[in-house]
């Protein structure tokens, strides 16, 4: 009950932050505007619409990822420091609230806020892709250009892969939020912002640390070092599946299986971060 109460107040507080509201509104606005990016809008032949629909999907996913990064970092860096600065933490921790309850409550609030934001963006994104596909199919089926498309499949109006895309983005920033929250226990917001950025950039290049860890010519200690880095730094590139979502049958045999594995990775990593945050926060002087 305590963790949930703290989470609720965190959500209420975060959703009212002007800067996060702006990120959300701008992201949703741009996703809607992406309908107009293609040369042919939604009225095209089935073949021509392929690039248009792909553009809308890839742009929407990229934008949600960018917005998700901004939201999770901007929100996360101030989660604990703001409570200390505003002294709200005093009236809470002076009550019979265990420290781990407080920090877990803050994290739960952060990921709920993230879920709301990404959920809203996701709904708009899926609606936009459905509208785009519907427009292309309706036009292609009724115009004379449809005759030339006789050999093409009908365009599926709803692509379930778009949901996986949104889920992956959420999982990615759930992990980043945990990292940033952990750092917020002992770093100032400014330092934490750049720390979060740095960890994200290294995490995006996870395949590089993986290659270095398995480089044949490197000596044992170098390989071990990079293996440790590869395990310890979150591999954010694992969550980047836009290409596979746009061309799902070209590589991965099962998106569901991959998502489950990556989801497990995300949960484990989050647990590690939160456990470390609990340990450090126990000795945090406020």
């Amino acid at each position: 009950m305590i963790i949930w109460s703290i989470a609720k107040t965190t959500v209420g507080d975060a959703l009212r932050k002007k800067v996060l509201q702006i990120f959300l509104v701008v992201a949703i606005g741009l996703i809607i505007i992406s309908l107009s990016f293609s040369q042919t809008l939604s009225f095209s032949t089935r073949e021509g619409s392929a690039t248009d629909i792909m553009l809308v999907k890839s742009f929407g996913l990229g934008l949600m990822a960018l917005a998700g990064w901004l939201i999770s970092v901007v929100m996360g860096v101030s989660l604990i420091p703001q409570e200390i600065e505003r002294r709200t933490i005093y009236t809470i921790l002076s009550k019979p609230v265990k420290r781990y309850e407080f920090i877990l409550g803050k994290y739960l609030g952060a990921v709920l806020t993230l879920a709301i934001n990404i959920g809203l963006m996701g709904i708009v994104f899926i609606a936009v892709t459905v509208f785009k596909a519907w427009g292309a199919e309706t036009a292609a089926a009724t115009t004379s250009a449809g005759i030339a498309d006789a050999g093409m499949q009908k365009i599926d109006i709803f692509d379930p892969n778009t949901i996986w895309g949104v889920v992956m983005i959420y999982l990615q920033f759930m992990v980043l939020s945990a990292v940033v929250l952990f750092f917020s226990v002992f770093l100032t917001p400014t330092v934490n912002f750049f720390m979060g950025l740095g960890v994200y950039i290294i995490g995006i290049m996870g395949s590089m640390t993986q290659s270095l860890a398995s480089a044949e010519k490197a000596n044992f200690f170098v390989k071990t070092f990079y293996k440790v880095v590869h395990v310890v730094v979150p591999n954010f590139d694992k969550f980047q599946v836009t290409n596979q979502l746009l061309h799902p049958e070209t590589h991965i045999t099962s998106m569901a299986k991959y998502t489950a594995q990556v989801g497990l990775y995300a949960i484990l990593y989050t647990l590690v971060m939160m456990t470390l945050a609990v340990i450090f926060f126990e000795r945090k002087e406020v």
Partner: protein
Amino acid sequence: MISDSNRKLLIGLVLVMLVGIGIVQSYVDPIQLKMMPRDPNKETRELMVQLPGQFIVASVTGFKEVIAGALWIRADTFFHTGQYQAIIPIVRLVTWLDPHNIDVYTTGAWHLDYNFVDYSQMSDKRYIPAAIALLKEGIKNNPGIWDLWFELGWTHYNKKLQDYEKALECMEIACKYDGVDPNTGQRVPRPEYVDRMLAHQYEKVGRFQDAIKQWKKARRRVEQMIGKKKKISYVDQSSLDVCDRNLGMLYLRLAYRYGDMDAYKKGLEIFRRLADRKEAPADVKQAYENASKDYARRLATNNPPRDALKPLDAGFEVSWTKAAPKVFIIKGKINLCPASEYKDLAVETITNWYRNNAKLPPERRALWRDGARIRWMLTDYGYKMPELETFSWKIDTTKTVVWDSIYVSGGTFSERIDLSRDTEFYPFKADKYKLTIWFTPQQPDCPDYIQDRIGWKGEALTDKRYLDTKSMPGFKILKYERILDKKDIM
């Protein structure tokens, strides 16, 4: 506050979870490696440097496919304005940003093969290795898709290089895979025509039994696709009829050209099915009736038709003369199927071509010797088409490689070939050149009705000077070769 023992427990838990993370990574990492785009080669890296910084940032931050899509739309604009040179670097960048966009590989390869043309609309053959390398890269990145294999085989090896054996290999692989819907990325069955094209390709290289098997396979596949009505809306009875007619004609041609009466019977069986249908056109019914009677008569008199086994003197004459520096004239004669002979060919029973053609007014009447093509090729002496390991559109501009075909009309052919206007295309830097002029009995150089007389493999062909049985084992072709000095051309 947590006790020391609990703290140690938590730290231990963290270590255990880190080990768990390592284990999960060992499952996920290999899958992830497959997703990564190939390392860009030197040319791609140079191109990347030229892109504005924001494109690079965008491509790193998860907007790769957006950039790829935007660039590809731009490439389409270049195509419509004829700026083909601009398209290829875009193709390279797009395939690096999004290695699973099939359309880019196929369109890019097509541009390379067909759109760099000279003054007289002949394409620059030096780009063909790049087209093939691009498609092979596409196949490497997308191995389980029929489209790219088919493109490589049909459009490039078959149509461009006339390397029918290699084309066949690619098309056989294409027929193992299904495709991907470009709009949703979902798996869709490959179109039924792919399997039919493979059957035609078997015929082209003279593997008749394989062709027969393939026609039957294609037909079964169409039946299955008709069964799945919801998914595939464009496959119906007419698709089955196409398979039946082609298989039927193949059987009948085996009979008419080589005397295979068993094949005659099988072909008739198929045409009977087609003729028996209520909606069958009158000419099909008539054709079946005629062929049945012919079959019965031949069986009774033990007189199987063997039209393609009767020797025919092609009387191939060819000359090459220089009209001006880098301008030359190729002309000659060839006798492939006189009209007078055609009316007596066994295949006339079913096609009625001669009879129908004879009814036409003179100005519309085709001469049966028309429709064949004579091929010619001029290259630097010793030139071998390179096989590129990786895609690169940089060509060796010192090489001269050109080939084309000349249409035969009325048994003669003549063409003035002007290579003087495009010095970039035809640099003529070498001292010696090889000129080859030839005719093969394979499609498309040799249409059906000519093959009806000379056979799929040119079995009936004879010629005093130019008959060649070594260049294409199993086939009889007509071939003229000559070594030219630079002064002969310039």
